[in-house]
Structure formats: structure tokens, C-alpha cells
């Protein structure tokens, strides 16, 4: 007869979420600095046209580089990031080479001509764009210059299959990935592996095409007209605010988009479209100012992605005070009057 095992049953904890593991089999961790992956002899090239405002890759740019890494044939290809200026963090995002287009300001025709020339010269297997307003515009300009089809808004990608929506979102097109691809936002994960050794490649000179398009500068839309989910700065009122005309004057003076908590909307003081929170709008703002809002969990979900929160509330123990970067325990109206006075307006 077989003997009964005396040790506890071995469980393999694939996700490392705790539980019983057999530590005797695991070697002690050794301190190894993360090495950079170098692709010396790339089998082919992959271009990623990044927006990289200010030389820093956006979240969407990283997703496009992650998509390029899905097409690299198991590390055989080199991913080349093309951006208007030098990019600082391309290696960690998974890029092997960076190429500077040397574009200053808004010159989409010149940028498209440069990219088309580089594509003809280096013959990359795929060129990936980001499907944002400017990225999508550039992708279509390059596609029309190269006279090639563009597989835009790709939501799922592998070396054998690219998927994009079509026919008003009723069907999806499955095809072998063509050369020109644009990546839909927040659909393909960024690269999470070891950093790549990123070096700079000098782009060839391209003559400036004759342009019929002139940039006259970026302007801000009136903050009150911006949809709440696109606003950068939001000023919101809750149950602690009574004087709503003054609140709206302050929002206009600050250049902030007005928002509201559920209580203020339920009471009919502000329209439902202004509601911030789980049942209203989930904000993508950079900065949020909460006046007289205690911070119900549903409201805090609405400001989950906001980095800078300022709260004015009379209750020291309100949840929003813990969430705020700057918390002021005071009556909202006194602070609103002082803000209007500082902004040069009569309360």
C-alpha cells in the first residue's frame, strides 16, 4: 500500500495572490539590474507615428507602441518611433529607435510628406498611427500621399488579424493587418516588458511642400460650452452651496466648466447634464474644485482619474477632505466671494 503524504498538498499559485506555496523549490531572488533589450539585426521595421506633446509619450502613444510590439514577430523587428521632436522615454515604452521629424507647430502637410518619404525610403512592414483628432488626420494625409488603404480605429491586433468597426459600428472587419493602421484609444495594452535600448536615427531631409493651410494658433473654447467629460478644470457645487448664480459667475471668472453633485441636480438648482459621479459624468479633468461637496462614494468615482482635487467644506471629516490635495474647512460662500474679489469681480 502507498503511504499517505505528510506534507500539505502542493498548490501552484499562478497569479501569486497568496495561499500555500512550496518555497523550498524557489531559488532566492538575486539582485539583477533590468537589462535593456537590443535588437541588433532587425528583420524588418515597424513605424509608430507618436504625437508626444512636449517630447513625452501620451498614454495613447504607448498603446500604439504596444500594438507595434504585437506585430514584431517575437522580437525580430525594430520599432521606430517618429515624433515631431525628441522623445525622452521611448525605450521603456518598447521602442528601439526614435526618429525626429523636426516639425515645429502645426504643419500636417509637411509632417505627412516627411513620413511618406521615410516610409518609401525605409519600407517598414507596418506604420501605426494613433486615432486621435490630429493623429487620425495625419494618418489619412499619409495614406492619401502613399495611395494605400488605411485600416483605422483598430481595436484588436495580432500578426495575423486586425479588427476594426465598420458600417456604423454594426459589423467589424477582420483582415490581415495592412501596412497603414491606426489604433483606437484604450483598446490595446501598452508594452510592459523589459525596456528596449533606444537610440536615435537621423531622418533624411525633405523639401517643404507648398501649403494651402496656415496655423493661426490654438484657442480655448468657452469653458461653459465644453462637455464635462472633456473639461480640463471643473468647478462643482454641492449641498453646501446656496447661491448658484454666484457659483456660475465664479466658474466663468475662473475659466472652469461648472459641475454639480447629485444633490444639487436633484434639487433642481443645476441641470442634470452637470452632474459629476457614477450616475452622471466621469471626469477626465486635470483639476477639480469641490465647493460644499462631502464626497459620496458615487461622487468620488466620478473624479477617480482627476489628479488635483481642491475641496472647500465645513465638515473636517468629509470623505472629500481625505481625497483633496488642498482641503479648506470653511463656508463655501465666503471662499467664493474672496475668489471673485481676487479675480477682480464683484461678488
Amino acid at each position: 500500500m502507498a503511504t499517505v503524504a505528510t506534507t500539505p498538498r502542493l498548490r501552484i499559485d499562478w497569479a501569486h495572490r497568496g495561499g500555500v506555496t512550496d518555497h523550498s523549490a524557489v531559488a532566492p531572488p538575486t539582485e539583477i539590474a533590468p537589462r535593456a533589450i537590443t535588437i541588433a539585426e532587425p528583420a524588418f521595421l515597424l513605424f509608430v507615428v507618436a504625437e508626444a506633446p512636449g517630447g513625452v509619450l501620451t498614454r495613447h502613444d504607448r498603446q500604439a507602441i504596444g500594438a507595434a510590439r504585437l506585430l514584431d514577430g517575437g522580437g525580430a523587428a525594430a520599432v521606430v518611433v517618429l515624433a515631431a521632436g525628441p522623445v525622452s522615454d521611448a525605450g521603456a515604452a518598447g521602442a528601439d529607435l526614435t526618429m525626429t521629424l523636426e516639425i515645429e507647430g502645426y504643419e500636417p502637410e509637411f509632417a505627412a510628406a516627411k513620413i511618406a518619404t521615410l516610409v518609401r525610403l525605409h519600407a517598414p512592414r507596418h506604420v501605426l498611427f494613433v486615432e486621435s483628432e490630429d493623429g487620425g488626420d495625419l494618418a489619412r494625409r499619409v495614406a492619401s500621399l502613399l495611395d494605400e488603404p488605411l485600416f483605422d480605429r483598430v481595436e484588436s491586433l495580432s500578426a495575423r488579424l486586425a479588427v476594426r468597426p465598420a458600417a456604423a459600428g454594426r459589423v467589424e472587419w477582420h483582415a490581415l493587418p495592412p501596412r497603414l493602421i491606426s489604433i483606437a484609444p484604450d483598446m490595446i495594452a501598452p508594452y510592459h516588458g523589459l525596456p528596449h535600448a533606444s537610440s536615435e536615427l537621423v531622418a533624411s531631409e525633405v523639401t517643404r511642400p507648398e501649403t494651402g493651410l496656415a496655423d493661426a494658433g490654438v484657442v480655448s473654447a468657452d469653458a461653459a460650452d465644453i462637455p464635462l467629460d472633456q473639461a480640463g478644470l471643473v468647478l462643482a457645487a454641492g449641498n453646501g452651496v446656496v447661491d448658484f448664480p454666484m457659483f456660475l459667475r465664479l466658474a466663468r471668472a475662473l475659466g472652469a466648466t461648472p459641475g454639480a453633485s447629485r444633490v444639487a441636480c436633484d434639487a433642481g438648482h443645476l441641470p442634470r447634464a452637470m452632474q459629476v459621479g457614477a450616475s452622471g459624468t466621469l471626469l477626465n479633468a486635470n483639476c477639480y474644485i469641490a465647493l460644499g461637496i462631502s464626497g459620496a462614494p458615487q461622487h468620488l468615482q466620478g473624479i477617480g482619474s482627476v489628479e488635483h482635487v481642491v475641496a472647500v467644506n465645513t465638515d473636517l471629516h468629509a470623505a472629500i477632505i481625505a481625497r483633496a490635495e488642498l482641503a479648506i474647512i470653511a463656508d463655501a460662500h465666503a471662499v467664493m466671494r474672496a475668489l471673485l474679489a481676487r479675480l477682480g469681480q464683484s461678488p
Partner: protein
Amino acid sequence: MKILVLLSAGRHFASGAPRPVPVELQAIALGRALVDDQGGSVSGLHAGRVDPSVADALGHGLDDITVLCIGAEDDPLPALAAEIMACAPDLVLAGRRGLGGSDSGLLPYRLARSCARPIAADAVSIAPQGERIGVVQFLPGGRRRRVELKIPAVVTVHEAAPPARNFVYRARLAGTIEEKPGAGAPAAWMAIEARPYRARPRLIGEGGMGGSAEERLRAATETRSVGGRLMVHPEADAAAAAILDCVAGFRPASR
């Protein structure tokens, strides 16, 4: 000012019924506002067959529609380019993307290239400036960019443009549809399999993936203390100064 609006055969996203593409109706409204100001005409141009969705665009403010009859699978570019060269409009307007076909938004760019016209994307307003037009482009985050274009030009219109004009049945009846044979060319072939659309999960959070379901739930619902600055019963003016100091970097620059 002679304005041509490109019309595509639109389909409703849920029912699949023919209907005009909303952003093309917004383009008609932008063109109509220019014409009411300056004088001129707003015509529609469609390549394909006479589609009920295209005919309905008459009721939203078009004077007339020209339909260039080409095969269903043909590339509409040569027919449209020939017609634009023939009638030489000052401004060609298009929606930024169709709804019902390939929906790639590439045709206005190919058309601009084949007609050698400048193109500006994502317009929310258009104003004439002599030999040029000023176009305000939509940018995310509440920003707008002002660009100037030499006319004749091609402009695509964004969904954030002013709303379309209401449907007027009398205008729908009064408008004329002219059918012409168009120069069809076979489209570039690409092996595509169409399947019913399946919505895929969007990435949430910075990493896009992380830990167990419990960790993701906690990240979505938990209030984390950021250990910020706390002012208890300060002078109102000091509080206002602290707030303005904190939000200074986020206020629009033009103010």
C-alpha cells in the same frame, strides 16, 4: 460662395435603417450659414445609387443633389473628382467619417489630393476671410485651433459643430435630385471578412491591467488619502489665494 457637401449612404447604428449621417447634416448647416451670409448655393454630391438616406438630406437645407451612378463595389474617387473639377465649388464639405460603409474618413483626403486642394479636418466653425477661409478645428480637452485655408478647399466637419437644421418636408419635396452616370473604377481589393460587431472591453487605469478583480474593484471604489494640505477655518482671502495658487496651471491661458 458655391458649396458642395459630400453625402454618404448612412445607416442607423442600431436598426440599420437608411438615414442621413448626422455629421453630414451638420456640414450642411455650416455651409447654409455661410451661404445665408454671403450668398451662393449649397448642393449635395453622392456617388453610388439613389439612397433614401441621401434624398432625406434635401430636407435639412440642401438646394439640390447630384447622384453619380456607379456600381456598389466601385471606388467613388474618380467619379467625385471629375464632378468637382467640372463644377468647381469654392468649398467641399464632408463629415469626418461616414456611418454605414467603410467609415474610414479617408475619401475627403484622397479627393483633396486628387483635386490638388488643401484640406482641414474636424471643423466646428467656418468663416470667410476674402480669398481664404478661417476654420476652427476641434481638439480634445476643450481646445480649438484656428487655421486658415486657401480656397478652393476641402473641409471635414466634426460632431462638435453646431447642430443640424431641422427636417423640413416641404424642402425635401422641393429639392431636386439629378442622376448622372459616373466614372466608376474598381476599388482596390482587400481580403476582408465582415462579422457582427462585438464590443471589446476598454482599458481602465494607467497600466491597463492590474492584479485581481478584488484589487481592481478596490482601485475603482476606494478613497485613497493623498495627504494634501489642510486649512482649518482660514481667512477667506488666504483660502482664495491658496486655491488660485493651486489651480493656476490649469486655467485657460487666454484669460
